């Protein structure tokens, strides 16, 4: 039984209380990672961090997070690469991914969505609170309403 299957049978609200909802933040900028990580921790999530694409894939496989916040411009394997590889891997392909980037042209958005991202958010256009709301909403849709 994979971690995802195990988690999906437990209501997300009860998981939240036990600090068991794991959010993986793949972001190379230390400051942005800290702000977002701090906000997520405060909201009761367990935050996992990855500094580049390869680390992101590695942590996804080892930790089985419930949701991934993925930057696109990353050292080494870029976000598209990571997204493509994650969605091809049946072990982790069901984990929802929010792309969080400062790219944001139509081509970028279409490409990320086509690769399987749940949502595309331009960092400069959203406050940390809005990102938390998006995380909540997607977790809800993904794990509760099934």
């Amino acid at each position, binding site marked *: 039984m994979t971690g995802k299957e195990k988690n999906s049978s437990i209501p997300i609200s009860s998981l939240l209380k036990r600090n068991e909802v794991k959010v993986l933040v793949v972001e190379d*900028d230390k*400051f*942005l990672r800290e*702000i*977002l990580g*701090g*906000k997520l921790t*405060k909201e009761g999530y367990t935050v996992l961090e990855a500094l580049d694409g390869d680390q992101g894939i590695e942590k996804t496989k080892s930790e089985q997070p419930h949701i991934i916040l993925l930057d696109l*411009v990353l050292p080494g394997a870029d976000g598209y690469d990571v997204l493509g590889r994650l969605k091809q891997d049946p072990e982790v392909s069901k984990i929802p991914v929010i792309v969080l980037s*400062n*790219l*944001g*042209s*139509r*081509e970028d958005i279409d490409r990320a969505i086509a690769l399987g991202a749940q949502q595309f958010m*331009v*960092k*400069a*256009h959203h*406050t*940390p*609170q809005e990102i938390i709301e998006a995380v909540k909403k997607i977790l809800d849709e993904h794990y509760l309403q099934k």
Partner: protein
Amino acid sequence: MKLKIRHTLFFRFFWTLVLLGVMPMAISAFFLVATYQSRIADKVSSGVADELLRNASIQFFLIFLFVLIIATFSAFIVSRNISRPLRTLTEAARLIGEGNLNIQIKVSRRDEIGNLGSFFNEMAGNLKEVQERQAEISRLKSEFITVAAHQLRTPLSIMKWSHHTILDGDVGKVPIKQRELIEKAEVANESMIRLVHNLLDAARIEEGRFGYKFDSMDVRAFLHELVDEKKIFAENKNTKLELKDSTSGPVEISGDKERLAMAVGNIIDNAVRYTPPNGTVSVSLEYDDAKLRITIHDNGAGIPQKDQEKLFTKFYRAQSTMHVETEGTGLGLFIAKNVVEGHNGSIWFESHEGQGTSFFISLPAKGSLQAAVNKSYDTFVKNI
């Protein structure tokens, strides 16, 4: 290329040659008749005289026929020799006018027309070089803007996120004075973010990468939604924003909702920004069979006459608004114009200083939207 026969080179050469051929004949006939009258008429019998005259007229008639045939033939050869290369050059000039500079005219003649052809080739070559250089400069400029804008977005998001983390009280209670300052800083930061966003859009428009996704949409619902959304912004500026809808049901068009919201939204934003407090901005929607028109009217300061023609250019802001406190980026109307034209629509305005401005957006109704014509730029090769 249709020309009236009276204006062709052939016609002109033909008449010149006919005149040149017939004139000596006429003179010779005149002298012959004169000589006959004065010297021969009384010396021969009338029978001989008649025969002579008949002979002469038959001769003249044959010469005239011959002249006509020769003139037609020569006019055809000469005019073809001149007009064919001219037609080639005309066609090449037309292509240059349309922007296609891939032109090769093979010059094999050494006369004036040959010279014209050589200079034409040289001109097309130079123009092409200039065009390529400009395209390269424009590409580099857009690339620079794109890179710079992305680089700017990271520190701007750091500032935005920091401001909001502080304002949310995540790092402790914020005294009111400090809160006010951070809120002001965030307003400035937001206007920078908007500028970067618009710069990226403008760069994409110029690079031709500003793609449209056309879908069936109801303009009526779209406009109601957009105006409702903008009402908060207008209220903050103490401006009344109203929607006058003269349609009775859904108005379906084929359009890119997101881009249209940006275009119409930019114009509403401008109208609200440039209208003094307690002013009114009204948006109206009219629709009759073939055309749909959105009008955004304000009773603000108006646009000075001298600023009007530059209004849709990038970074242009009317002189009179320079000292008014506004947070526009100078790119809104440039983007709006491109979006509307991308929908095969048109945008224009009427403005009177001191009375207000009306912007008109006209969009084709569903079905009449035509795909943009792609010009082919094959090389034009011809001999002259």
